[in-house]
């Protein structure tokens, strides 16, 4: 058994999940903030679009992204104009795809957690001289720790287990875009059942221990916030 064929995909899955989580906590917080605190034109349309990846088959999303990020697509073309390289079949490409795919898993918990914050403490922050931008970091963020934690867990684990979208736009390049779930799929197909077993077990154990740690932390968090 080749250890690289086991470790590389796991490492890429982990990197992908971590990068997607970082990007989505920022982007998700921004979107959730707009949806909770600002007037958003055509709100039902925007909210439905954000939730779409939950109900859409990953292959459909993957197909759209393949077109969008391809050399003829808007995103692919502007990326190529900016950086001179193609977006498809690269690590950056699968990060972007995962960001779209996991968007609702970041926005929904953050939205719920922002909406739970007492409006008056935000008003008080403005009264005390904080701009909306500063108030977001000094009041909204520290009072949404549980929401950020929930968003991070969901996005991280959802990305670790992502399959259909990456199958479409990743191209399974070893060492770059071949993530664990795809390596498992390929191992099963090429009858390398031992590799499939090892990879699946590591992935399952990693996800489980991650959840365990986060749940333990989260419990402490709730105790700390309780009045």
């Amino acid at each position, binding site marked *: 058994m080749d250890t690289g064929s086991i470790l590389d995909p796991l490492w890429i899955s982990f990197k992908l999940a971590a990068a997607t989580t970082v990007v989505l906590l920022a982007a998700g917080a921004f979107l959730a903030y707009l949806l909770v605190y600002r007037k958003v034109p055509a709100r039902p349309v925007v909210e439905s679009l954000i939730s779409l990846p939950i109900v859409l088959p990953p292959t459909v999303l993957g197909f759209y992204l393949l077109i969008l990020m391809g050399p003829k697509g808007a995103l692919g073309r502007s990326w190529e104009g900016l950086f001179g390289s193609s977006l498809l079949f690269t690590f950056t490409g699968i990060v972007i795809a995962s960001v779209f795919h996991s968007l609702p898993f970041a926005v929904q918990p953050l939205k719920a957690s922002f909406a739970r914050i007492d409006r008056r403490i935000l*008003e008080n922050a403005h009264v005390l001289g904080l701009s909306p931008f500063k108030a977001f970091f000094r009041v909204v963020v520290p009072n949404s720790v549980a929401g950020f934690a929930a968003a991070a867990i969901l996005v991280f684990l959802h990305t670790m287990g992502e399959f259909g979208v990456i199958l479409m736009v990743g191209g399974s390049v070893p060492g770059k875009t071949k993530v664990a779930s795809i390596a498992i799929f390929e191992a099963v197909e090429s009858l390398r059942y031992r590799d499939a077993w090892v990879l699946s077990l590591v992935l399952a154990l990693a996800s489980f221990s991650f959840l365990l740690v986060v749940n333990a932390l989260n419990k402490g968090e709730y105790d700390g*916030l309780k009045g």
Partner: protein
Amino acid sequence: MALRAEIRKKLNHFTLDVSLACAGGKILSVVGPSGSGKTTILRIIAGLDAPDEGIITCGERVWVNSRAGTFLPTQKRRLAMVFQDFALFPHLSVFKNVCFAARDRSLAEELMKRFGIWHLKDTRPQSISGGERQRTAICQALASGPEVLLMDEPFSALDPITRRKLRMAVAEMKGELDIPIIHVTHDIREALFLGDEIVPVVSGKVFHKWLLQFMLTTRGAGMCPDREDQGDVELEIYDTRKEWKR
């Protein structure tokens, strides 16, 4: 420095239409039954709501001028507000709450000692009593060095003894601060005790005749500022108003 406000705003059941002025070092008490638009007046002065029409100035500075389209955002008005039922930050200790917008920490400490909450400095606001929270809110507001102080029913959620103590403390503060303080209450005794000027508001309008009527009733005449040992009188105010209308 004086605060002047002329405000008109259409609300659900009536139109709010008031004109107020409060000089530095004075307390203006807006008194009226619940649902009379008092809180909306404060929110408009704070910039948390916008009037349909109106002019609000603080000294030379124009906060709102609906004709000129001026609207200064809340955070630039340099005011502070003590909210009804408190609006403290649950993620910060009492001391950090008071320091939230404080110019310097020694002022925060001094205020907390003066209001008797220094021993609570490391406690979260969720685990202290209502009176202590309200003191924290007042310290937080004063520590920010505001040019105008707004207080929305600051003592209504407290027990009579705490209420009396805090009223005294605020009355003492007013001379030192030298800023306009606008105070909103449904409790006429509180208005009589704290207010240098009293503006009675009913259904969104200044209604001096109503106050006069209230003062003339035997119950009202008996309400001296220093005899505030009985309970709430909101119901009485309401009844008097009905009699007046009849």
